[in-house]
């Protein structure tokens, strides 16, 4: 029935709060010490290659592993390793972290030089060596994304510059400040992966970035700029693929299975920079904002900088800070303390005051259907919640709970303030446990 067919996927309209959009990013001075957790990507943790007392230089590889799903970690400051300590990440993962006391000299490691690339293998090797993970949020190792099992079938590269999360403007700043690097990165991926069609997708609340890229790609018939409507979660991988190409990624499949690779704009920009300088991923452009930040900014900071140093650089806390998020308010992770360091896939630090953090009172489901209409993947969160309450794994599977990307549109739109996405997470766990 055509009447019920969707032209666009659903989503929700969240207040944008992009107040930092026109603030040019500033480089933060080197912090006194950095904390570099051994897992900053999706996959296996690295092993430390340095020990207490070692001197390290900027860009030096200090942790790596042979395991497949991983990327190395590099020193973001020069100085002395003060220890390899136990560390609990904001998502609860227990790992180790290399702590470096900075000497303030920022002496660059001698091995840093632009990579020499002659083939696809060289290129992928270089991308891994750069320590690059997806900078949009999930932290998937980029070299694995760029080595699909069907490279010849991949015909489209989508550059994700939707930045649909409220507050965050770091990708937008990257577009405005380093569009040349973005295009260099795109052309490198095109060259070594043989992709002819590139779509740069930007939400229509960033008209200047759209205009800039349209101008710069005017004479390039292979690169197009796609304007997305400003609706969360346009930047979710499967959503942006559908909106830009009309292709549907089936459950359990990867974008490459429908011939698409999606890369975040900051990720591709880093590739452009790395090929020119050879400096691995040791700094990150992030937005520091929120109601409890005195002077919100876009900053370029060393990876491993503790949150409290970042906040201090942005004027300190404005009143009482009640909640700190790594990432945006829709999918960001609330951290337990402000000693947590900046890691590779953070794109924002948000500090919120009490008025923004009071948990809403949960009431009974009134079956209004708002969660169903909000879900980009047309799942039925309220029905999933009922099935979860009855521990009905079979129904949960039929309701396709495993397709849930945890975007949070259901919880956002629920008038009874139910934690629907939280139940989806638990339901996925229940289904996984039952499969074993």
């Amino acid at each position, binding site marked *: 029935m055509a009447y019920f067919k969707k032209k666009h*996927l659903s989503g929700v309209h969240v207040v944008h709060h992009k107040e930092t959009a026109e603030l040019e990013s500033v480089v933060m001075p080197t912090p006194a010490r950095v904390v570099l957790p051994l897992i900053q990507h999706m996959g296996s943790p690295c092993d430390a290659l340095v020990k207490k007392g070692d001197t390290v230089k900027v860009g030096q590889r200090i942790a790596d592993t042979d395991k497949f799903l991983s990327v190395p970690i590099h020193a973001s400051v020069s100085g002395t390793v003060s220890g390899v300590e136990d560390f609990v990440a904001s998502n609860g993962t227990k790992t180790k972290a290399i702590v470096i006391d900075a000497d303030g000299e920022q002496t660059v490691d001698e091995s840093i030089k632009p990579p020499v690339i002659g083939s696809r293998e060289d290129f992928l090797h270089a991308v891994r060596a750069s320590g690059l993970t997806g900078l949009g949020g999930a932290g998937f190792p980029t070299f694995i994304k760029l080595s699909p099992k069907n490279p010849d079938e991949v015909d489209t590269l989508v550059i994700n510059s939707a930045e649909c999360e409220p507050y965050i403007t770091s990708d937008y700043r990257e577009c405005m400040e380093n569009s040349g690097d973005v295009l260099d990165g795109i052309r490198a991926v095109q060259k070594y992966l043989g992709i002819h069609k590139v779509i740069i997708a930007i939400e229509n609340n960033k008209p200047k970035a759209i205009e800039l890229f349209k101008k710069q790609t005017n004479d390039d018939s292979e690169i197009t700029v796609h304007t997305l409507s400003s609706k969360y979660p346009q930047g979710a991988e499967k959503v942006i693929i559908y909106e830009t190409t009309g292709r549907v990624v*089936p459950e359990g499949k990867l974008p490459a299975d429908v011939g698409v690779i999606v890369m975040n704009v900051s990720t591709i920009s880093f590739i452009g920079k790395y090929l020119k300088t050879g400096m691995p991923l040791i700094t990150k452009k992030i937005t520091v904002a929120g109601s409890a930040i005195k002077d919100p900014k876009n900053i370029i900071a060393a990876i491993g900088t503790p949150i409290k140093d970042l906040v201090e650089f942005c004027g300190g806390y404005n009143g009482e800070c*009640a909640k700190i998020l790594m990432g945006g308010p829709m999918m960001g992770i609330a951290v337990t303390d402000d000693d947590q360091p900046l890691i590779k896939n953070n794109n924002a630090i948000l500090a919120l005051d009490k008025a923004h953090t009071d948990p809403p009172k949960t009431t009974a489901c009134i079956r209004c259907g708002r969660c169903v209409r909000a879900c980009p993947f*047309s799942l039925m969160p309220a029905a999933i919640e009922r099935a979860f309450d009855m521990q009905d794994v079979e129904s949960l599977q039929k309701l396709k709970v495993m*397709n849930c990307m945890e975007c*949070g549109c259901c919880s956002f739109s629920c*008038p009874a303030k139910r*934690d629907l*996405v939280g139940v989806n997470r638990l339901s996925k766990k229940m289904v996984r446990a039952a499969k074993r």
Partner: protein
Amino acid sequence: MLNKLVVTSSPHVRNRVSTTSIMLDVIVALLPAVVASTLIFGLRALLIICVSVVSCVVFEYLFRKLTKKDNTIGDLSAVVTGILLAFNLPSTISIPIVIVGAFIAIVVTKQLFGGIGQNFANPAIVARVALLVAFAQPMTNWVIPKVVNGGLDLVSGATPLAQIAGGDTANLPSLPDMLLGIRGGSLGETCIVALLIGGIYLVARKIIHPVIPVTYFGTVAVLSLCFGVDPLYELLGGGVVLGAIFMATDYTTSPVTTKGKFIFALGCGFITMVIRVYGAYPEGTSFAILLMNILCPHIDKLCKTKPFGGVKKA
């Protein structure tokens, strides 16, 4: 170091819409009809509405208190039920019957099934149907407002649908009178203009989806033509407008998906017309909605959404 931070799972922002704000919107949408019914049927209409609302809220409060559950009167759903119940009663009804109706709606239909979101049928509809069966005479003791000396006077008479059923088509009210609500009927159902204003407000505020009212009206109109009765009187002369906009769209007792809502409204229109044309009662709206309420879980089961990228397992 800051370590007294609130840690919750995402999302960390919520939409402003709450159950209470939705109910408040419904109450606002009902206000034009409240005013209209008071103008048409006099202050007694307002008295009945007030008694109904107060008894619904009191019954809800007492039930929650006695069963040691959270107090839910703050969500305003009992107020909505109270207004809708009053709208379904004739203006001549005696006050004790209103209170019995409120008891059936709030205690029997809503709270005994678990409170808001758990009732199997619209509380106001169940109450109206129960009262109609139990108190047939007082529930059909209609008065007709007549313009006398520039003011409205009330004389006893029948509803347009009862007139049609009785073959008395010569004395049917004029179309403008029907739109303004100057005709016999339950106190909230007569003023079509006021109800439509409320309906447009609800659609504009995205509280209801237009598919239920539009499909309901369409089905009644088409079936009227099939049965050879006047579609305008069928649409405007009974409770269809009130029922389609405010009762059949109740979230809890109508299907969740658009497809389900369409089937639901189709069924409502069909049963309404079958009862009116073939049944013993001149009006069938409340029976139709009640029967479709009961079918709602089954419609929901048949009309699930199709998950994006979903693959059928072999």
